[in-house]
């Protein structure tokens, strides 16, 4: 944990409530996010017990499975979930704008501009916790290889319509959620812990109710006490006051309340299904409300200036998956091939670098952390000495002297970057410390951002008295070189993978009698 975050957590302990880690909101928050609070059956993989889902906090849709081991009931749940989710997801598909993009022309091999569709907005799913994100991924995996009767009339136990499609979207959201800074699928605990430091550990922050107790404690109650209540307090029946945010249930709930109700359902007792629905809703509703409380807290923060730029990348992601589905492509394979894995890793590394840079540029408090780490510095210009590069066309290379209290980790010749107005960036290189190696005085040489002429553009060279913030990191890191196409996978990596149609990884999961568990 970086020292500045440790300090913020210690401040929170002393203050009795959470302290800010940011001054702005660094994640896109949709006007109408779709909140999904799932519960799963203990001991079963991908056997949902129930869910609250919807975009209206007052009217969540309750879905329950009175007997999770019954395949038909489970399919019924998934079909209803698809009904609740897919119209929302599809609702962004047709509102489009055109963007110009460079593509390689297959005939000439040249880069040519093409007009492509970009959806003007995209869906956003919010789940309570990181485990919820993993559960969306798991449901996606369990659904996308199913076959409906329409797809395959011979399929035993065909899945209801739309279930495989929901599986593909959930898989897409789950994969996108691995991209740093991406916002198609978010967990509320992840959102809140990015913006606030509590007086407890990161492990304890995974409990949504306890986390909220620190950020927004009930009036007159110290946050730590409220958080401990949220974690562990039980009623006379031994049930938690704040049930876990799922998808796992509390064993005491399973054993004392749910199991007897399910036994009644199995025995055909009238009203047992309604009883189970009420029990499940009683576990889900507090978390549903907590997620919306978190949405309110986040909405009160002003959005960071570069958040929209990153959301645009999410819109691209949504648009391209829309296109893949419209083109009738098969579901995502079980495992990435070598090239796809390497491409994903590369794009995530670029996304991480971009996110780190943009958050710092958008937020002085985040930049403070980078300054403390020696990755950026603020200083006041004391002197500017004009100089020019050697060569046939000398270019301005003024040497700027700065006074700073920061202690950046500089190497001679190291590159520096500074944000200019209008989204442009000025570059410089570190020359030397001040006389006698004084680390409080830095000499840097400007190398860019001054226009193309022999005379720097007006205002592009700082003046004595200006306070500047320079970073050692790039502001718009680019990705690495292109990788080969999958069909050109080299021998070192096993050669080309089987074609999508032939790959065993695209085949449906075998349906067995054991599917009824």
């Amino acid at each position, binding site marked *: 944990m970086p020292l500045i975050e440790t300090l913020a957590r210690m401040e929170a302990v002393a203050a009795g409530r959470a302290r800010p880690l940011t001054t702005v909101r660094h994640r896109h928050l949709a006007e109408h996010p779709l909140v999904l609070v799932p519960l799963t059956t203990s001991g079963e993989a991908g056997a949902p017990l129930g869910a609250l889902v919807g975009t209206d906090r007052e009217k969540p849709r309750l879905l329950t499975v009175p007997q999770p081991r019954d395949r038909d009931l489970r399919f019924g749940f998934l079909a209803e979930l698809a009904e609740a989710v897919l119209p929302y997801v599809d609702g962004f598909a047709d509102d489009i704008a055109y963007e110009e993009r460079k593509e390689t022309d297959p005939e000439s091999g040249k880069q040519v501009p093409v007009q492509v569709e970009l959806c003007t907005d995209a869906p956003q799913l919010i789940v309570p916790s990181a485990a919820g994100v993993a559960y969306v991924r798991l449901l996606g995996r369990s659904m996308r290889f199913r076959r409906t009767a329409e797809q395959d009339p011979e399929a035993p136990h065909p899945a209801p319509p739309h279930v495989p499609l929901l599986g593909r979207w959930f898989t897409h959201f789950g994969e996108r959620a*691995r991209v*740093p800074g991406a916002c198609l699928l978010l967990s509320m605990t992840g959102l809140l812990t990015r913006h606030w430091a509590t007086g407890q550990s990161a492990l304890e922050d995974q409990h949504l109710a306890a986390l909220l107790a620190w950020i927004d404690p009930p009036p007159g109650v110290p946050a730590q006490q409220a958080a401990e209540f949220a974690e562990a307090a039980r009623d006379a029946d031994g049930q938690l006051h704040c049930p876990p945010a799922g998808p796992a249930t509390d064993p005491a709930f399973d054993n004392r309340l749910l199991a007897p109700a399910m036994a009644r359902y199995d025995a055909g007792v009238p009203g047992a299904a309604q009883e189970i629905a009420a029990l499940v809703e009683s576990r889900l509703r507090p978390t549903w409300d907590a997620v919306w409380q978190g949405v309110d807290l986040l909405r009160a923060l002003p959005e960071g200036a570069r958040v929209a730029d990153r959301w645009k990348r999410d819109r691209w992601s949504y648009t391209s998956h829309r296109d893949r589905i419209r083109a009738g492509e098969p579901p995502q394979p079980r*495992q*990435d*091939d*070598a*090239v796809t*894995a*390497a491409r994903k*890793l*590369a794009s*995530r*590394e670029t*996304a*991480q*670098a971009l996110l780190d840079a943009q958050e710092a540029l958008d937020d002085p408090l985040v930049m403070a952390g980078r300054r403390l780490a*020696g990755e950026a510095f603020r200083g006041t210009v004391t002197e500017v000495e004009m100089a020019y590069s050697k060569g046939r066309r000398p270019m301005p290379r003024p040497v700027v002297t700065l006074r700073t209290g920061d202690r950046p*980790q500089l190497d001679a*010749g190291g590159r520096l970057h500074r944000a200019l107005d209008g989204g442009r960036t000025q570059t410089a290189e570190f020359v030397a410390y001040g006389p006698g*190696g004084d680390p409080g005085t830095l000499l840097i040489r400007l190398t860019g951002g001054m226009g193309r002429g022999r005379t720097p553009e007006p205002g592009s060279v700082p003046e004595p008295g200006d306070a500047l913030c320079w970073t050692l990191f790039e502001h718009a890191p680019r990705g*690495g*070189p292109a*990788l*080969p196409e999958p069909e*050109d*996978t*080299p*021998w*070192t*990596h*096993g050669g080309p993978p089987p074609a999508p149609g032939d790959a065993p990884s695209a085949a449906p999961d075998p349906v067995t009698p054991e599917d009824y568990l």
Partner: protein
Amino acid sequence: MTPPPLTAPPPADPAAAAAAATDAILHDTLHSTRRGVVVDSPPGAGKSTLVVRAARELAAAGRRLMIVAQTNAQVDDLVLRLAAKDPDLPVGRLHSSEPAAHDPALAALPAVRTSARIADLADRDIVVSTAAKWAYTKVEEPWRHAIVDEAYQMRSDALLGVAGLFERALFVGDPGQLDPFSVVGADQWAGLSYDPSASAVATLLAHNPDLPQHRLPVSWRLPASAAPLVSSAFYPYTPFRSGTGPGDRRLAFGVRGDGSPVDRVLDEAAASGWGLLELPARHTPRTDPEAVGALARVVRRLLDRGGAATSEQADAPEPLTAARIAVGTAHRDQAAAVRAALAGLGVSGVTVDTANRLQGREFDVTVVLHPLSGRPDATAFHLETGRLCVLASRHRHACIVVCRAGVTDLLDEHPATEPVQLGVTVKFPDGWEANHSVMAHLSEHRVVG
């Protein structure tokens, strides 16, 4: 990891053993029908010499050769070595279009041409560049041969980007140094043969398990006092030995010690090849002022006491100058603090850097700040086997470690609750074991400071 089969008992003479290994490697490189040859090289085992020799033989056999290294410094170093061995060899240095993209010293080499464009180097027998630059390069048809240097520090995805450029390759590297890593999670591919965050060699061998594998059996850098420890602690399944015997390297001081802990640890290191200057147990931040000060004083006294190093490389003892000393740390801020402390004592010219940046380098004497010194907790970073291995294997004569007492307890109290990924080969030794082995050995050379 299974030990490679031993075909014949190794020759007793280290030079003969090394020569036999090199001959076998060159034979497979030039004549094997397989597309790859893998060579493991422990610290100082003559990897660069092997690369230069293989490059020249491949060029002489008329095979156009690309050499893929990982950093610009490594590329420049290889070009300089090739030119030193054969000044007429036409070598191309492909570089990026950034300013100062290569060592200016290359400009003075008559047969070496530098360019940012591969087309300018079309007539060169050998072209050397980084994996990153090669990955941007297009070739009309694959080159006949490549040498991939530092292949264990290369990530699998970097190899994926360049493997289409060549037909066959010699992969050379040191499996004991720092593993490549990713700043973002790559768990979802753990256990896959082509996990992009794994090392290039791991992927290569997973897909081509029957490629010829060799190893260089002799470290010419490490003295007889260091090779057995480094071999057993870091290369348990692939032992190596030193090329020199116990009496072949000597370190002596012209000025007698003053009895201080610093001088006593210097004398211990001169006599035994190892010294541990143990400071009182205390939890400290990374830039522990006392430890940093002790490192600086050790270096100051190394210079002041007129150190002289006797080795097989020269007829007479050579003075231990600042250029032949390095200080190694785990973190950059520690290195910066040591540099400042050295400047305060009027010392200049000593290399001070982190383990990452000391990889592949060699000095007469190294002074090391133990990665776990003063820490309240051990982390995966600080326990990483490769980090300690790099720090403990850069020296030709002696290694002096500065450390707070209490590391053994810290290791014992380290929680062992690592997650396990199915299908991922367990790496040995783990950091815990290696750290314990090294500490046990160092404690025999301890001076309390």
